[in-house]
């Protein structure tokens, strides 16, 4: 239940990358056969990644992941979909605005969006979105960690990130991570093919999960816009308790979830995203992100629904806030 942090690598993806971990080990910069074989594989993958977001292959810069992709210098950046609560932002509207500003003379105003969570979970089309740059990370798409890409619209000029090699049309130096790039390409192709089915599957499981939670646990709040929301995320605040204790309790029973985002965890401050929803510290600290993947099953959900109410109950029994609330409710009832 933590597919927002990372996703299991698809078996088909591993199969596709294996040859590049064994006999096909060329350096794409080498002129000879082995090198050119690697180059061709990289270019095939680039085409698949481009196709997934309706871009052209030469607009794709392959690199080490979403974080590296986010490390460009641009003026406006908006998350396409938030990684904590899954809310989808109105990028297309912002895109129109940016284009108008640009037409009005602000020539170097670019719109960047972090598409890491959205990819493979909603249709992402750079033309419809109107963004100039878009970050992608393969490990959220059932490929391994350590590879990603930045979409760069043809009109945009960027300073290269790693100096010292001529790879990626001078936009990113370093020998290409061939096997990983092949994995990313395969994952992109599969995501494109299976997108509708995956979305329907995740949406159905989430509905099952949220109905179950509502039925079995009192004092819960579902965070985020119920309409404009990625299909795989359910972010829930459990009143009177704190998220990390719940996370560890669930973990000890084999259920992996997140508080906040994996990217920023380790800080464990009350989530600023949930707070921004006007929820206050207690609800922010009590929020847990459940995230479903294409491989999650009905049985997985049912197991969580069995374990979760007990874990919440146990922590609430410990909580002075809960005891106080019970006492107050008893008084009001009288």
């Amino acid at each position, binding site marked *: 239940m933590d597919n927002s942090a990372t996703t299991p690598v698809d078996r088909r993806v591993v199969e596709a990358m294996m040859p590049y971990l064994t006999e096909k080990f060329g350096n794409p910069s080498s002129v000879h056969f082995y090198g050119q074989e690697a180059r061709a594989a990289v270019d095939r993958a680039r085409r698949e990644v481009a196709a997934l977001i309706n871009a052209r292959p030469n607009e794709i810069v392959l690199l080490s992941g979403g974080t590296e992709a986010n490390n460009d210098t641009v003026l406006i950046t908006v998350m396409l979909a938030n990684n904590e609560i899954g809310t989808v932002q109105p990028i297309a509207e912002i895109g129109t605005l940016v284009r108008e500003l640009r037409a009005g003379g602000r020539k170097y105003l670019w719109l960047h969006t972090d598409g890491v969570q959205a990819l493979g979970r909603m249709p992402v089309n750079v033309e419809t979105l109107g963004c100039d740059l878009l970050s992608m990370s393969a490990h959220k798409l059932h490929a391994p960690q350590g590879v990603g890409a930045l979409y760069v619209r043809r009109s945009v000029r960027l300073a290269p990130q790693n100096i010292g090699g001529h790879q990626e049309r001078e936009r990113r130096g370093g020998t290409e991570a061939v096997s990983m790039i092949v994995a990313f390409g395969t994952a992109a192709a599969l995501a494109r093919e299976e997108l509708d089915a995956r979305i329907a599957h995740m949406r159905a499981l989430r509905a099952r999960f949220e109905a179950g939670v509502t039925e079995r646990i009192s004092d819960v709040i579902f965070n985020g816009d119920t309409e404009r929301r990625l299909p795989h995320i359910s972010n829930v605040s459990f009143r*009177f*308790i*704190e998220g*990390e*204790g719940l996370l*560890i*309790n669930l973990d*000890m029973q084999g259920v992996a979830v997140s508080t906040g985002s994996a990217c920023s965890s*380790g800080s*464990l401050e009350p989530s600023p995203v949930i707070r921004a929803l006007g929820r206050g*510290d207690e609800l922010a*600290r009590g929020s847990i992100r459940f995230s479903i993947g294409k491989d999650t099953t009905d049985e997985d959900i049912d197991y969580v629904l069995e374990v979760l109410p007990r874990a919440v109950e*146990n*922590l609430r*029994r*410990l*909580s*002075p*806030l809960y*005891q106080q609330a019970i006492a107050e409710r008893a008084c009001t009832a009288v």
Partner: protein
Amino acid sequence: MPYSNILKDHLARPRNAGELADANRVAEQTNPACGDRLKLSLRVRGGRIEAARFLAYGCPPTLACGSVLTELIEGLTVDEALRVSRAEIIAAVGGLPARKTHAAALAVETLHQAIGQIHRQV
């Protein structure tokens, strides 16, 4: 793992959770650093802590420190309990990350507050 297995065990099976119906000493403190809360209720007879219970809200270290504290102090005299240190609590939960040691401080302070009531009453 940021947290020890001992700590996680206290989280899964808290010792002495709840409140004592016949407590004669109760203290509740909020950690100024983060808002974590600890509530202790003690039954003290003849200068000895016969029973201790805790409630806690906050991060796993706060919960575990509350649990461990009650174990450490049950049966001790008040004077012995006053010597229970932050370091001892941290050791008893199997260590804490540096930025979480203030959870042990909260435990010590809440205990001292409760014991302070005793001293005042004596």
